């Protein structure tokens, strides 16, 4: 080292020059930034037709009844393949496998969800046809989607109460779909036939009974009216039901706020008459989710959403059901959960999402569901840190309320979940 640097006076000169250069760079951020840019590697990431991730989770829930603790370990594998071939053709396949072990037992429970498997043909740039199992999801609201007409019975395996997870981990329906596009507008039509009678609990079933239990059809049209306003209209129908009209509307209120309205209306029976096989009480009923998302300059987004289910129970009928036979209550809750409908008329959803909170790559999310009809609440929060290929997250959930209330009836009072996700 000494030989390299030479005499003490030369060393002093070099150190002085180095210090001066550092000082210059520090004083000239442009020069320092350009130096950094010079060192940037030149390779470009290539796209892949595969998207694959694996998730390991450990959760502990506390029972509401006796404070007993239940531990569940879960291992999930999620794959999506999306390949364009022969110029105009595209093949999409998406599948998820969840394996669970309860209380360190050797007993393994597997649930496979065949989310999508379809072929797409783009006959012209503005004409596209699809055939196969497709997750045809509509809706602009954040938590409750009245126009997501194919949501009923679609979730086979609940891994989180996060609305995004419920949308993602679900079955598509087998259908044929066509879409035509024009400048600032589009029209889609789909038909989904009945293919099976009953849902299946079998681990690796395609579960056509859940996704294609009856004939259904849907027409959706969008026309942009301005940069801030582009409504989407939907008409949905099927065997054993009257057509339902749907509307999705978003509007840019200002530079930081997006407002939305999602609404469906049509002649339908009430949930209680469906659940308890009561005489049909078909009437015009509407479902609504409306709210806004505001984003602050510090990357904090706040969403407030009001939900209305015209087929759900009002306060008096909900109180009566809670006081009545448990079997009726159970049937009603099971039906509402299967339809992903709120059990009561009204509900409020609040979400806070803070990206890069406090430190870079740390995201905080908090969801609060409030049922004003029975004053019960669900609180879910997640702290997530992400590296290049790995996400680590800690989730906490609290269900509170009177016995028999929407969230007070949950068998779990509290739930912790730690999870790690590896993206291949």
């Amino acid at each position: 080292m000494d030989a390299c640097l030479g005499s003490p006076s030369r060393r002093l000169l070099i150190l002085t020059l180095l210090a001066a250069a550092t000082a210059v760079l520090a004083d000239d951020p442009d020069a320092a930034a350009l130096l950094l840019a010079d060192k940037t590697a030149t390779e470009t990431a290539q796209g892949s037709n595969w998207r694959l991730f694996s998730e390991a989770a450990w959760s502990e829930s506390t029972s509401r009844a006796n404070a007993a603790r239940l531990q569940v370990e879960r291992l999930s594998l999620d794959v999506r393949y999306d390949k364009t071939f022969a110029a105009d053709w595209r093949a999409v396949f998406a599948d998820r496998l969840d394996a669970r072990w309860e209380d360190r037992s050797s007993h393994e429970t597997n649930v496979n969800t065949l989310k999508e498997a379809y072929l797409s043909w783009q006959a012209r740039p503005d004409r596209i046809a699809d055939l196969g199992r497709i997750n045809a999801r509509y809706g602009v609201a954040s938590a409750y989607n009245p126009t997501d007409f194919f949501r009923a019975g679609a979730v086979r395996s609940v891994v989180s109460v996060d609305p995004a997870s419920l949308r993602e981990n679900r079955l598509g329906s087998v259908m044929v779909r066509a879409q035509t596009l024009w400048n600032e507008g589009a029209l889609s039509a789909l038909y989904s036939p009945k293919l099976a009678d009953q849902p299946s609990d079998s681990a690796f079933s395609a579960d056509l009974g859940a996704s294609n239990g009856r004939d259904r059809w849907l027409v959706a049209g969008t026309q942009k009216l301005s940069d801030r306003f582009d409504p989407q209209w939907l008409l949905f129908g099927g065997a054993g039901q009257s057509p339902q009209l749907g509307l999705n509307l978003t509007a840019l209120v200002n530079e930081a706020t997006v407002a939305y309205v999602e609404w469906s209306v049509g002649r339908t029976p009430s949930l209680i008459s469906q659940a308890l096989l009561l005489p049909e009480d078909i009437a015009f009923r509407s479902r609504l989710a409306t709210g806004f998302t505001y984003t602050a300059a510090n990357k904090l987004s706040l969403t407030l959403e009001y939900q209305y289910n015209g087929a759900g129970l009002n306060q008096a009928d909900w109180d009566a059901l809670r006081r009545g036979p448990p079997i009726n209550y159970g049937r009603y809750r099971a039906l509402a959960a299967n339809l992903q409908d709120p059990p009561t008329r009204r509900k409020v959803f609040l979400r806070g999402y803070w990206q890069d909170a406090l430190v870079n790559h740390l995201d905080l999310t908090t969801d609060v569901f409030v049922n004003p009809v029975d004053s019960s609440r669900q609180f879910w929060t997640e702290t997530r840190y992400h590296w290049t290929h790995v996400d680590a997250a800690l989730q906490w959930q609290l269900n509170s309320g009177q016995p028999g209330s929407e969230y007070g009836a949950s068998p779990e009072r509290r739930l912790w979940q730690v999870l790690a996700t590896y993206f291949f």
Partner: protein
Amino acid sequence: MKFQPLVACAALLALAGGAGAAPSAQAILSASDAIRNPDKPFGLTVTLVEYRNGKQSDSNTLGVYSKADSNSGQFRSLIRFVAPARDADKLMLKNGNDLWFYDPSSKASIRLSPQQRLLGQAANGDVVTVNLAKDYQAQLTAEEETQDGERETRRCYKLALAAVSPDVTYHHIEMWIDSANNRPVKARFYTESDRLLKTAYYRHYQAQLGVQRPTETVIIDGLDPNWVTVMRYTDYAWRDVPETWLQRDYLPRFKPE
């Protein structure tokens, strides 16, 4: 090719200054825009590498198809995330203030506010594919020597750009354009209160789609100079981008070649 006469014309307008009258500042700006932005629909791959305090903190790769609006002149873009793996295949549409994000996993189409977009890396796209001459009134304030992104001294026009409408991202901009060839050299972007938002260096000029274009932009945050983003452009190609694709209903269908 169509863009060549345009560039040549703009260059001629700029060069006309040498022969007689001073070049129009707006013409210089237009010529500079034409160097950054192809005049026909095109596709490219953008790699963004972000540094904080001298260390790489993030890296994203995006596949982008862009097309200028025949009325406003501004670019509309379909963007597909290529990397990191977590975000792969997510999509974004930017069509003026019509901003949509689509996740193929959850099938959720989410409308974004301009504020949400500005918080992400995509905001830096404004520094790159934006036709400044459409939104800004240029004034020639000086002709001076400045150091470019390669640390070479260039004789430049220094332009002061003032926004002509209030809904643009930057209230005013200082821009240095090489007086020999109208290449953008660097720019400083400001808020209304004259706060420096970012500095951009346009560098590594290479022949792309028939014109020498910058293949790298180095962006330095105005508030935190230790926050540096390097944007690299590769895989330039002419692409057919029908008008019918530039809407949210097409977004789930978009897959760049």
